[in-house]
């Protein structure tokens, strides 16, 4: 904050100034950060949409898809992974319900479970990577496969960090309450997004 003449109270990230504006915002929040995250996720969604469209085009301009010699993808492990990730979306929602009742213990519990599920998902994906018979540059299918799942994996990793961050903060007493739990909501919204993307990705890469 070198050289800033503003005092930090006025410049914190969740800057909120007048009562009027607060009134128009979501009743439970004093700021627009959740809206900001949702708007940002629109942009994230567009990156994935662009990559998906590229994948579909590559698929349809190639005479054979996947190109000859590509080993068939195993379905069992990714299937289990998918089930885990989808269910984690429901699990994390419990945390939101809990904190709205000021139940910090519930919050910790459900966030812990979600984090574990996310970690299992990532581990599963890494396991899959190491046991695949093709590498990043083997062919066009392999490249798209790794880039798409890898890019999604990074998002899962980021979501996991968010969840762990919230978990860490929730250890401080009264950090989150039924009226102030931006972190919880942010992590949840992000996690749902990552989940939805995975479902599309799974259908496109493994099933289609």
């Amino acid at each position: 904050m070198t050289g800033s003449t503003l005092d930090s109270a006025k410049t914190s990230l969740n800057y909120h100034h007048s009562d009027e504006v607060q009134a128009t915002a979501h009743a439970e929040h004093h700021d627009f950060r959740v809206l900001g995250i949702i708007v940002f996720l629109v942009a994230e969604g567009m990156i994935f949409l662009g990559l998906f469209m590229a994948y579909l085009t590559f698929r349809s301009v190639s005479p054979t898809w996947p190109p000859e010699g590509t080993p068939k993808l195993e379905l069992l492990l990714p299937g289990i992974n998918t089930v885990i990730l989808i269910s984690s979306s429901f699990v994390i929602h419990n945390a939101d319900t809990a904190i709205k009742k000021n139940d910090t213990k519930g919050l910790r519990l459900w966030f812990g479970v979600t984090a574990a599920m996310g970690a299992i998902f990532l581990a599963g994906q890494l396991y899959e990577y190491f046991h695949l018979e093709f590498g990043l540059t083997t062919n066009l299918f392999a490249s798209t496969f790794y880039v798409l799942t890898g890019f999604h994996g990074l998002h899962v990793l980021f979501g996991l960090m968010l969840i762990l961050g919230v978990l860490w903060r929730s250890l401080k007493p009264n950090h989150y309450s039924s009226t102030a739990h931006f972190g919880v909501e942010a992590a949840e919204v992000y996690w749902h997004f990552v989940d939805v993307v995975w479902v599309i990705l799974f259908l496109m890469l493994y099933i289609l």
Partner: protein
Amino acid sequence: MTQAAQYQEKANLLAHGSEPENNWRQYFGFSTDHKVIGIQYLVTTFIFYLVGGVLATLVRTELATPESDFVSREVYNSLFTVHATVMIFLWIVPAATGGFGNYLVPLMIGARDMAFPRLNAIAFWIIPPAGILLMSSFLVGAPGSGWTSYPPLSLISGKAGEMIWILSVLMLGTSSILAAVNFIVTIVKMRIPGMGFNQMPLFCWAMLATSFLALVATPVLAGALILLSFDLIVGTNFFNPTGGGDPVVYQHMFWFYSHPAVYIMILPVFGMISEIVSVHSRKPIFGYKAIAYSSIAICGLGLIVWAHHMFTSGTPPWLRMFFMITSMIIAVPTGIKVFSWLATIWGGKLRLESPLLFAMGFISLFVIGGISGVMVASVPWDIHVHDTYFIVAHLHYVLFGGSVFGLYAAFYHWFPKITGKMLNDTWGKLHFALSYVGFNLAFMPMHKLGIEGMNRRIAEYDPKFAALNLLCTIGAYLLAVSTLPFLVNVCWSWAYGKPASDNPWGALTLEWMTTSPPPVENFEADPVLATGPYDYGMGSRATQVNVPFSDPHSPGLSAGPSSTLRAKADPVVAAMPSDRQGESNNR
């Protein structure tokens, strides 16, 4: 001082802040004040404009003669590649949205800052390193495959330079997305009470549409660049035909961003022109709603026309027809804006100073670029002129004649608010005259060059084009010289200029209702809307407006029934108080 302005100012006396003490050091630090950030953007991007302009001058110097004699061919390719990248990603986009957007939007909607001030500062601070990174590419062999960077060419020429280009554009794209998130939340959530969407100044509408485009389109470019960098570094084959990839996919992804990008560059300027034309003609903006909603229409249409850049590459016929029609239809909402500005000017009391001159220059030049745009949207014609100087002419008419002239108009208009000093108008007029002449001299002949067979991106050309090219080069030099009066004017006026009053133009929008320059947090109390943003000539609704009800000699000047601009008296603005009541449905 006109009645409406008096009325608005009186109502906002309470909100009127006191002048801030000036601390120049904050401009070099991580400030979260939107005004500081706005100025940081404006100064930084203008420096990059000068860099881009010097590169352009080098390009034109090479093209002064038909032979490739001034720089090597590789360097020539790098020159125009970096020229275009700098102009687009480091000048127009960040100056129009980041610069003026940041400075003006919170003031115009009566907010005290952007929704996420720290995010705002982060978005700005991504830009200087990205720009320096791009410049540094000249040390390792700058990128030379055009600002479009089409593979496979971009994959086989100069890996280091290309990678730097990708990184730099990715950073600038991130900055632009973050700024867009901020603008959308700010405009949707932080307007003062009483300011509905239809009471917003038109610049805010334009920024809303622009931010939406940036939000939706930029990520796709990021996707394309991520894939491209994998091809470049790791050796995947997404866009490399030797491994089964398809270069046309890159073109789709690139233009899915880069066509909307041209509207990201022009929509904010449209917004500024709406403000300036109205204030300096002393008339309400003509057709507020039409202008506001046409921004939205352009924004929607702008997302579905990208393949018009690919009419000669691998696109199927149905796509060409579809994209031809959608591209041409954009002329309709744009025409609505142009004609509305003309109608605003018509019959006004024009204050013919630099802001309005540049705004009128904008209209006159942008229309030429728009017309050539509609021509190239026509598939058979585009098949002929694609990748020729006709396109170079088109793009400079809309980008320089459009965006840059508009930005200059905005500089002249808001300089008093930003610095508290007036710019010298004589120097401004000189700047305008030189720019206008130089610009047309530099770019008008390019139309003919392109049609006759001069393709773009070449360092050497057929000697039969020598004469016209020399003319272009002379024009470009004149254009370079025209920047000097502006620079002198800004530097001199900032230091020694005549102090500006808080509302030197007698404007009604809220940024003029506080001090020049505005204090930290902009307003002392929340400002109020005593009049609409463009109620010039209307005063308070109790007062009579001194406008002849009818004027047989020049009906355009009158407010009454025989006005060429208006069929019947509008209840909100009618000249006679007795005719006036309620809200107009005509704005």
